[in-house]
């Protein structure tokens, strides 16, 4: 059975896992080439993300009962506009989808008037955007979506982080993978490296050194490409045992280590993928018994940990590889609020009226506790 057909049949349920057909793949290939050769010269990862947006639009179109291929979707501006107005994503995501679709039309529709017509119809179907300088009937257009982030980001303490790192090995199948997964989670929790950067890390980038009271770093990761600049990101000493174990397992006694730091268990030459790294971190959090936490949650906990260790905000900025102090502030804010609210809750106790005497004392917490247990 061909690979495409096999993958297509794998989908179950109402919305099957969509896998692009040959025509859509060709269009995506043309898009990638056109984008990489364009004047702005975007990074390959950026173009890959834009292709993901286009694939996401086809998936949305299938869910809304529209065209099922990228080419048909491109030629149906009403459905494109409907997705951009109504698909439940954030405003930023829908805006990027719009930009990607307009570029796709530019790169793949050869007839210029036709391309202009398609783009105009897509724009006409969007919402008018308020503007102080223009009258209401000539307003520019914008996508729908919410500016709010619906995902929950719990405030994790250092004890929670330790639990996560300890639980990293629960889902690992063998000893070698245990060391790798622990090191991945340790780097995610105790350094400013993001999951996007972890797959591309190489041994040559890692430089170990001795930590001091002023600089509690056990290693530094050099030449991390981040938004067009190379940054150097330190790793706090808590991650040292996990990195040391990984180095010991990887070293063959033949000089300096080289190649990717985190490789697949099958096909040793290839690095781990981003989705696999995310899965490892997600399983570690889940096995630690904590609510789902994304990378931002871990980085907020890390920034607060550095603050508690006495580092000033500028040092935290450099440790996280951030550019502005506003980013540092936003990482520390939730923890500060939470700490203040916890203290306030201790100070401020309301006297609750007790339960009535004639009521049963057994309490039902959730659906799991059946009512039959009380009788």
């Amino acid at each position, binding site marked *: 059975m061909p690979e495409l057909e096999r993958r297509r049949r794998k989908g179950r349920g109402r919305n099957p896992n969509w896998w692009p057909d040959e025509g859509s793949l060709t269009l995506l290939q043309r898009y990638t080439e056109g984008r990489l050769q364009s004047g702005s010269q975007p990074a390959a990862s950026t173009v890959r993300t834009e292709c993901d947006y286009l694939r996401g639009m086809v998936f949305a179109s299938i869910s809304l009962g529209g065209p099922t291929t990228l080419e048909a979707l491109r030629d149906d501006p009403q459905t494109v506009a409907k997705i951009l107005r109504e698909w439940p994503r954030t405003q930023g995501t829908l805006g990027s989808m719009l930009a990607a679709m307009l570029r796709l039309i530019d790169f793949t529709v050869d007839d210029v008037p036709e391309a202009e017509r398609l783009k105009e119809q897509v724009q006409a179907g969007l919402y008018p955007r308020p503007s102080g300088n223009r009258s*209401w009937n000539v307003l520019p257009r914008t996508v729908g979506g919410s500016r709010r982030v619906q995902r929950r980001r719990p405030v994790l303490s250092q004890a929670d982080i330790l639990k996560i790192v300890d639980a990293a090995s629960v889902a690992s199948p063998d000893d070698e993978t245990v060391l790798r997964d622990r090191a991945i989670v340790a780097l995610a929790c105790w350094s400013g490296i993001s999951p996007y950067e972890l797959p591309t890390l190489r041994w040559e980038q890692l430089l170990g050194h001795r930590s001091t009271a002023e600089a509690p770093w056990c290693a530094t990761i050099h030449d991390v490409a981040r938004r067009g600049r190379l940054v150097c990101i330190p790793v706090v000493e808590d991650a040292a045992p996990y990195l040391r174990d990984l180095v010991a397992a990887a070293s063959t006694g033949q000089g300096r280590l080289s190649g990717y730091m985190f490789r697949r268990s099958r096909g040793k030459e290839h690095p781990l993928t981003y989705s696999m790294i995310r899965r490892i971190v997600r399983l570690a959090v889940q096995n630690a018994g904590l609510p789902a936490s994304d990378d931002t949650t871990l980085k907020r906990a890390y920034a607060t940990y550095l603050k508690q260790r006495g580092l000033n905000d500028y040092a935290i900025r450099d440790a996280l590889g951030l550019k502005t102090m506003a980013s540092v502030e936003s990482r520390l804010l939730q923890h500060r609020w939470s700490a203040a609210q916890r203290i306030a809750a201790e100070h401020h106790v*309301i006297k609750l009226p007790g339960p009535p005497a004639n*009521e049963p004392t057994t309490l039902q917490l959730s659906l799991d506790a059946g009512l039959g247990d009380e009788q």
Partner: protein
Amino acid sequence: MTTKADETTGRIQEAARQLSFEVIASSEGWPSPRDVRRPGKPRPRWVTPQLLEFERRARLAGWSASAAAVQMRLVRSILKVAARQRGRAVDLRGLFLDADLLAAAACDAERLDGRGDDPLTNDTLASRRIAARLLMRLMEDYLGAEADVLIEKFHAALLRRCDLKGQTYCLKSGRPTGRKPDPPTERDIEAQLRDVSACRAAYYAERNVAFICLLAATGLRLGSAIEIDGRDFYRLGSNLCLAVPREKCQREPVQVHIPPEVEAGLVRYVSAFNRYITERGSTQKVGLGVAGPFWRSPPDRAWTSGAAAKMIRFHSARTALRPYGPHAIRRFVAQSLVKTMPRRAVAEALRWEGVATLDEHYGPAPGRCLEAGARPSTVAGERRPEGARAGT
């Protein structure tokens, strides 16, 4: 002869009209709850086609449904005041073309919107001014005059009746924006809780007690607390936490710790509700971590913020000398915390960026801190200790 610009404008107008109809009337796909008008709620009789058109254009210009409705209501209140001043009915175009009449109506200190006895404040003038300016901009074709010219005349007429302070206009006869009356005391809250818990109908006592305790312990706003879903509760260690789904001015859910006393109240409510609903033969449940609206009334529907506010006002009227609303509980929390915690920590606990909001709106009013029984705080830097010299 029509130009290309006219054609484009006409086409955009037509598209906008269609889009407006589609946004407000269509329920396909995933329309935002704000875009869908509640069925079965008829328009008030005073809504004229012109006002309806104004609201529709405000929606098109990006105003939310509720904000557009407020603008329409403000324009209507100006119309009503103008009609009283003139002694006869005034039409919308006539009012907005007569800058003097418009300014006089906007500055009239008497409230005619039936919102209590509070006299008009400077805030109300500002909102009336915004509504008038918005109408001039959006209904330029209906008024038949250029918006900029009308706005300039309106501001000139306003200046004859108001003082210009910075960028805002202050009423000469109006009361400045003042502090709200003193919040309830701890005794008031406790008396209210006792009164609420005396109700023995269904699960309402447990629900109301839990709700008031949640507000009084965490300082949440009513709108944030009422929208809680059962899945928003989770545990971090032994603590119960709540990810408040919609907190004012926050783009993402905010984590709030639930004190054990409040947790006990929540559990009591869950237990009472589930017992009641099972006796009625329904399979619906609420719970900590269970999907679905957490606050219910009646059992199959979410509790509304209006009903919750009404409950708080009703019981406070029975137990306190001065009835208070749900937001007074937040002010009570702020003032209770200020007695024992530094101001900055209180501001952070209530999720404000600085202490300005606390000082201007929530903290004790000037002259209230040294009443009998008030002692200087023990927290360093908060209040000057006794015997210390002024200016040191």
